[in-house]
Structures are given as structure tokens and as C-alpha cells.
């Protein structure tokens, strides 16, 4: 069969989601941010909640997320996206609010904000792009950088005594009673990307169902910061990050029942 006969509207099985704008993403070639942006756009389209959804983009490489998905957006100060989302969600109970944050944003400067939003059980979705580095500012150490990993501020590899341990923040978040759903995903292969999409969809559905906070970590690459090509970056991620940041759901349900948290008399 000739290619021209295949490429016909009636045979279309995959195209760019309508919710993605025409702007060329500013990301480096092969950056995971692009994939996750598309997944988020697809989910919002699927659930038909464009008019209800408000995104909060952080300071980080994804600061310009607001250029790419056709919904209302607020850019947030570094680390404060969960507070911004809380503000929006509290005075707009009928809206679906999500943050899209990097590891520096969420797990370093914004530790207090993410922990408390999740602990309060704010009815929001958090998409957490963990690429083990500060992409935006040129590849410095992030809280999730592994020991031995080379970054701009750990030129000889992260050292325990000088730089401390990598932080598994998602494991902590999963224990906060306000979270309904906490999962760790990746999006580097067709299968994982499809799974990740399902996870994101569940998270948004939870927000519609007012179940509490839903948190989706996506273990990601930053090939620029890592100084690898995109394909090798995926390999590096699988070999080094996956053992430390294992995939899977850590919590799936609703925020905790209040009983255990009450004073007794």
C-alpha cells in the first residue's frame, strides 16, 4: 500500500492534542518536559475540563509551560506553586488546579509548601518532574541528585559530607494523610509514557472527585544538565535513577479518614 494512501484523515490514529498550542517548546531536544506536557494536555482534553483547569507553572525549565497548553495559567515564585495552587483552589472550589514542578522547586526551596499542601489535603494535582538536577539555571545539584553524580555545583560528584543525601520526597509525601494518590512514573518509553498518562488521568479525576491531593512524580532526564545525548540520558536514568527511585504507586485511594487524628475527649 502506498504511503499516500495511508496518510489520510480517516486513518489517523495519533495526532498532536488540540490543547497544545502551536508554539515550539523551548526545551532542549529530548527533554522529558515535552512528553509530560503532552500527556497533561491529553488528559485535560480527555476529561473535557479545559474550562475548569488552572495550571500553575513554576520557576524552572517548565516556567514557560504556560505557553504550551491552552488553559489558564499562573506562573509561581520558585517553590511556591503549592501555595499558589492552594490559594486558587480554596476560592474556586469548582476548578481543577494543578502544579507542575521540578525537583529543585518542589523538593528544595519549596519543601514546606509541598509538604503542607499535601498534609492539608488540598484538592489539587501535583506533577513532579524529577530530573535530579536544576535544569533551568544550568545544571546545579538538586535535592534528588545521586551521590557521585556530577553537576555544576558538584563537579567531582555529589559528596555525602559536603552535600548531604539525595532526598526521596515522594516517599514522604505518600505518608501525608491529605494525599489520595501518590505514584512514581517515567515517560521515556512508549509503555511507560502510556502508563504515566493513566496515572495523570487518575490524578485529575481525583481532583474532580474531590478526593484530596494527587501527586505524580515523573522520573525524568535532563540531558543538557547531565551532558549526555537524549538516548543515553534515558539509559543513565534507567540504570542510576530507577534503583533509587523505584516505579509504582505508593498510595491509591482517598485522603485518610479523620478518626485517628482527633483528640479523644
Amino acid at each position: 500500500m502506498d504511503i499516500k494512501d495511508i496518510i489520510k484523515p480517516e486513518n489517523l490514529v495519533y495526532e498532536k492534542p488540540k490543547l497544545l498550542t502551536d508554539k515550539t517548546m523551548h526545551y532542549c531536544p529530548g527533554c522529558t518536559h515535552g512528553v509530560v506536557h503532552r500527556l497533561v494536555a491529553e488528559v485535560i482534553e480527555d476529561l473535557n475540563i479545559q474550562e475548569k483547569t488552572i495550571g500553575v507553572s513554576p520557576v524552572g525549565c517548565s516556567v514557560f509551560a504556560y505557553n504550551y497548553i491552552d488553559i489558564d495559567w499562573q506562573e509561581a515564585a520558585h517553590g511556591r506553586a503549592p501555595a499558589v495552587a492552594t490559594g486558587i483552589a480554596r476560592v474556586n472550589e469548582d476548578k481543577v488546579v494543578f502544579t507542575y514542578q521540578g525537583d529543585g522547586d518542589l523538593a528544595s526551596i519549596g519543601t514546606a509548601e509541598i509538604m503542607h499542601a499535601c498534609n492539608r489535603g488540598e484538592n489539587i494535582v501535583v506533577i513532579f518532574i524529577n530530573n535530579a538536577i536544576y535544569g533551568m539555571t544550568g545544571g546545579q545539584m538538586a535535592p534528588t541528585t545521586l551521590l557521585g553524580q556530577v553537576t555544576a555545583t558538584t563537579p567531582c560528584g555529589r559528596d555525602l559530607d559536603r552535600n548531604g543525601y539525595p532526598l526521596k520526597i515522594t516517599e514522604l509525601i505518600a505518608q501525608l494523610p491529605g494525599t489520595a494518590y501518590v505514584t512514581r512514573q517515567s515517560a521515556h518509553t512508549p509503555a511507560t509514557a502510556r502508563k504515566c498518562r493513566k496515572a495523570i488521568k487518575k490524578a485529575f479525576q481525583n481532583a474532580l472527585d474531590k478526593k484530596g491531593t494527587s501527586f505524580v512524580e515523573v522520573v525524568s532526564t535532563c540531558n543538557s544538565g547531565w551532558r549526555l545525548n537524549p538516548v543515553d540520558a534515558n539509559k543513565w536514568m534507567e540504570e542510576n535513577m530507577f534503583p533509587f527511585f523505584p516505579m509504582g504507586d505508593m498510595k491509591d485511594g482517598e485522603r485518610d479518614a479523620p478518626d485517628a487524628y482527633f483528640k479523644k475527649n
Partner: protein
Amino acid sequence: MGELRLMKGNEVIAEAAIRCGCDGYFGYPITPQSEVMETLMDREPWDETGMVVLQAESEVASINMVYGAAGSGKKVMTSSSSPGISLMAEGISYIAGAELPCLIVNVQRGGPGLGTIQPSQADYFQSTKGGGHGDYRLIVLAPSSVQEMNDFVDLGFELAYKYRNPAMILTDGAIGQMMEKVELSDYKPRMTAEEIEAKYGSWATNGKKANREYNVITSLEMDSAKMESNNRRFQEKYKQMEEEEVRYEMFQCEDAEYILVAFGSSARICQKSVDLARAKGLKVGLLRPITLYPFPKKPIAELATKVKGFLTVEMNAGQMVEDVKLAAGCSNSSVPVEYFGRMGGIIPTPGEVVEALEQKLIEA
């Protein structure tokens, strides 16, 4: 006439917020203003008007919650006291940069650092020149009575929306903690998203409608030319404020040879000082700036051509005195502008002020 009550300044802020149709308050406890949130929590406005009240995990979180909620078009506010306001510096700069309306109440205490919980006016510079980075201005209202604590909540929001700019009520522990008679405002309904849109335009992130492009609230602009044009637009706004929003009060300035300039708590003191001085035969008047930004430059410049001197009375080391000098200097007169103040939480006495006036201006 509204309801007459005896209330603390801090309590009145809370009550006025509920009554003016505020959609949300986000705050964190700090002396001497914790009664604002406590009163709100006690009043349970969520049942009455639907207003949200949330105790945040910090002032950094509070101001960013305000940013978020304000970005969605809602009428929201926070309150704190000096150290807490410092923590909000980045957030306030973001709110100004993203051109969002909101109300911030600073019930000042003495600094720097942890300082004292007693009243102070040492955050004048921080409020009027920008505690945060970048070129921005707050609309700064300085109440000098509990009644004005009521009145300026609504006024603050009005101005904030008019200019899409954060407004601040700059007060202090004396007015926040003191009870006075106050005539409360009547209830105003909370505005719906549609009303806000009709009145102020459709910039808010309240969900992209089919009939408009999506909205983005941001202060980021990587293109320097565009960023500069944003900056110029802000400056235009500030200029308009300087033309339209200056508010002040004058007492016995008509025949005055000497003018006291003071705001907030110290202005109350100075009213008595004027009486004391007049009793001594000194022709003294008082100019009380109500808006600290925009500052009442013009009346000061006018007075500068007629009087023998100005004395600013401040509960700080002399901050507003610079603005008075700049304003008086505009007239190209060389009338002396002096400063008298107390610090550390001490409120000057009316007598001290008269003494300072005599020493610094009359005998000098």
C-alpha cells in the same frame, strides 16, 4: 449610619473584610496582629458570606496563596507584622509584577530583626520604596484611628482593583491593639466572576472560556524590550496614582508657621501637640499623609512657600523626612525640614514633640 461598636483595630480589619465582600484571607500568626485571623476564625464568615479563611504554614505561603487567589480574580488579603512582611518581599514583588490586586496589612512592630512587639513606624521605607526587588510601588494607606482601619479595607481593595496593584494598610501595634468606637460599614455582596470581569476586564485565571484566549498571570518576560515596556506601563500607573489618589488631612495649617508632618499613630499624638503648641502661642499646624504612596507632595510643596519649617514626627529613625524634603524641595524654597522621632516601640508624647519643634526649628 452603620453599626457602632467598640473594637480593636485588628478586629475591625477582620470585620471590615467580611463586610466589604472579601473572598479570602490567608495569614500566619504574629504579634501584634494575630487578632485579625483570630477574629475571622471566630466569625466563621464561610457560613455567612462564603469567605475563605486559611491559616497558612508561613508568611511566604500566605502571600503566595494571596497571589494565586488574586490571580483568579478574587478579592483576597493577608496581614502580618514587620518580620512577616519581610518574608513576603519576594511574593509582593511578584504580585506587583503580575499586576494583581490584593490587600496586605502590616501592623508594624519595632525592628530590625526580631526587635520588639511594641508599635513602630520603621517599615515606612520598606512599604513606600519597595521592600522587594525591582521597580514597583504599593498603594500605602496609613490609618490613624480604628475607624480608618475599617474604612481603608474597602478603600484599599477599591484602589487595588482600579490599578491592578497590591495595596497595603500600614499601621502599627498601637492602632491594631487599641479599642475605639467604630462605625462598621454595611455589608457589600462578594463579587461574582462575571461582575469582576465586567468591571475590571477578563484577565483572571478563572478557567479558559471558549470566547477568550487563555489567561496567563506571570511577571516573567525574557524579551528585554517587552520587559521594559512592562516596566514603563507600571510607571505610568504609578504616575496616575500620584495624580489621582493622593490623600491627606490638614489641621490648623491655614495660619501655621510651622508644620508637623506625621502619619498613623504619631499623627494622633501630633494633633495634641498642635493644641499644646497653640496654647503656648506657637502657630503650628499638622499635615497628615493618609496615602504614604502616593505621597502628598503637592500640599507640602505649597506649604513650603509659606511656612518657616517642617518637623516630621515618626516612630522610626527618620524615614518619611526624606519624602518631605523631596516634596518641600520641589518648591525650590529652602525651608528647613527637621525630624523628631522615637524608636524601639516607644510612642512620642505630645509634649516631647512641641519641645523638639522649639529646639529644632524655632530656637535653631
